Every structure is written in C-alpha cells, then in structure tokens.
C-alpha cells in the first residue's frame, strides 16, 4: 500500500524537523554563553538535510528526509573586554557565541510549520487508509 509509505515519509520528516528544532533550541539557549577562549565559545549549529528513499521495494516512489550531519558555523563571535569576569582570559577578554537570535527564531518557526504540515499529511493518509479498510462494512 502506497499510503503506508506516505506515512513513513512524513514520519522521517518529523524526525528530521525535531532534530532541527532541538538544535535551534540549543542555539537560542546558548546565545548569551561566554567562554574564555575563541575555541571554547559556543558556535551556531545547523542540521544538514538530505532526501532518502523510503521503503524496500523497487517500485517505491517515496523519498523521506534525514539529517546527514550537523554544521558548526565558523563565523567569529564577539570578543568583549571584561577583566573582572570569572571566565576572562589573561588579557581580560571573554568570547561570546556567534548565535544570531533573530535568525534562530525564524528558523524555529520554519521548522515548526514544516512539522505541522507533515502531521497533517499523516492525518490525511491515516483517514484515507481507515476509509479504505472499512470498505464494504
């Protein structure tokens, strides 16, 4: 039944969008994190999406989505002179994260809309399957 692979396809998308939402949450949570060196500072993380075939059969036409990796942005973060800060380095600097809070909020909304759309696909496919199964009752 093709409708089952529609549900599988939507579920792969739910999993991928969940990872994306988790990364966005992590980014927003660490937007104000400070560190004592450039290497230890928090870096914005993003998921890399890629499409994957769904189902084992050759006739399967569905393509789901999966997260193949997570990128760490290498944009330098802000360097602030705070000599009294507990994390300040020898020269009195602390290193902030390079998170762009506005971009992360937009990404979060995009991910949540995509999640909702896939839930809708699942619900519609489920209703169609149930109606098909109850034919002749």
């Amino acid at each position, binding site marked *: *039944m*093709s*409708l089952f*692979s*529609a*549900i599988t*396809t*939507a579920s*792969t*998308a739910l999993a*991928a*969008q969940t990872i*994306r939402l988790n990364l966005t949450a992590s980014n927003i949570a660490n937007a104000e994190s400070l560190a004592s060196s450039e290497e230890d500072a928090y870096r914005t993380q993003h998921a*890399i*999406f*890629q*499409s994957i075939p*769904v189902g084992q059969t050759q*006739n*399967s*036409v*569905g*393509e*789901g*989505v999966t997260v193949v990796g997570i990128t760490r942005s290498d944009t330098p973060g802000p360097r602030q002179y705070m000599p009294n800060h507990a994390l300040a380095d020898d020269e009195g600097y602390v290193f902030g994260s390079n998170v762009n809070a506005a971009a992360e909020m937009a990404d979060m909304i*995009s*991910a949540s809309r*995509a999640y909702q*759309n*896939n839930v*809708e*696909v699942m619900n*519609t*496919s489920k*209703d*169609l399957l149930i*109606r*098909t199964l109850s*034919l*002749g009752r």
Partner: protein
Amino acid sequence: MPLNLDNIFGVHEQALSVGARRATVLASNIANVDTPGYIARDVDFRATLAAARDELAVHRSRPEHMAANQAAELGVRIRLSNQPSVDGNTVDMQVEKAEFMRNAMRYNASLTFIGARINGLLNAIRGGQ
C-alpha cells in the same frame, strides 16, 4: 445485464492505486520542503491512470517480457517551481498542500463510488431485504 466481476468498480479501482502513489510523491515533496537541492515531483494522474487501465490488456508470453505496470511506475514527473529557491529546492509548499488535499478528495470520491457499488451489489444479493 451480464455481470463481470473483474470490473465492477470501473476505473475507481485503478484510481485508488494511482491516487495512493500520488499521495506518496506529494508527501515526499512536503517532507523535503527544506532539503537543499531537492527537485519537486508529481504524478501525471491522467497518463498514469490510463497506463494502469491498459495493464490488464498486456499479455506476457515469456517471463523475460517487461511487466506492463512499469509504465505506471514511470508516471513520476518533475514539477516546475513558481519560485525556485537559492539552495536549489523547487518545492512550493502552498502548491503541494493544495494538490495533496485535492488528491485526498479524489481518493475519497473513488472510495465513495466503490462503497456505493458494494452496497448496491449486496442489496441485489440479499434481494432487497
């Protein structure tokens, strides 16, 4: 009226399988709305349904002959995007949602026709009792 049990449901039997396949392709488009480089695809419903109907007529005399239903499998086409994005993704969410809903309604319509046919036949078998 001679009753041929092979095609009591008419075109709706094939319409269901093509509709289910199209739902899968559209679900793939919706799932990959944020995948870089993903090309939106769609099923040519009319051509695939016509191919699915012709399948019954194809006679395979040898096992090496191609199965006719491969024609139906090839009904997947690339859909042109109204607004391709910079990352190469050509999925238009509003189009996909509209087409998915339209496909679901057509599927429901076919189910209703089949259901009515089953009820009519059952009624005839029971003699209206």
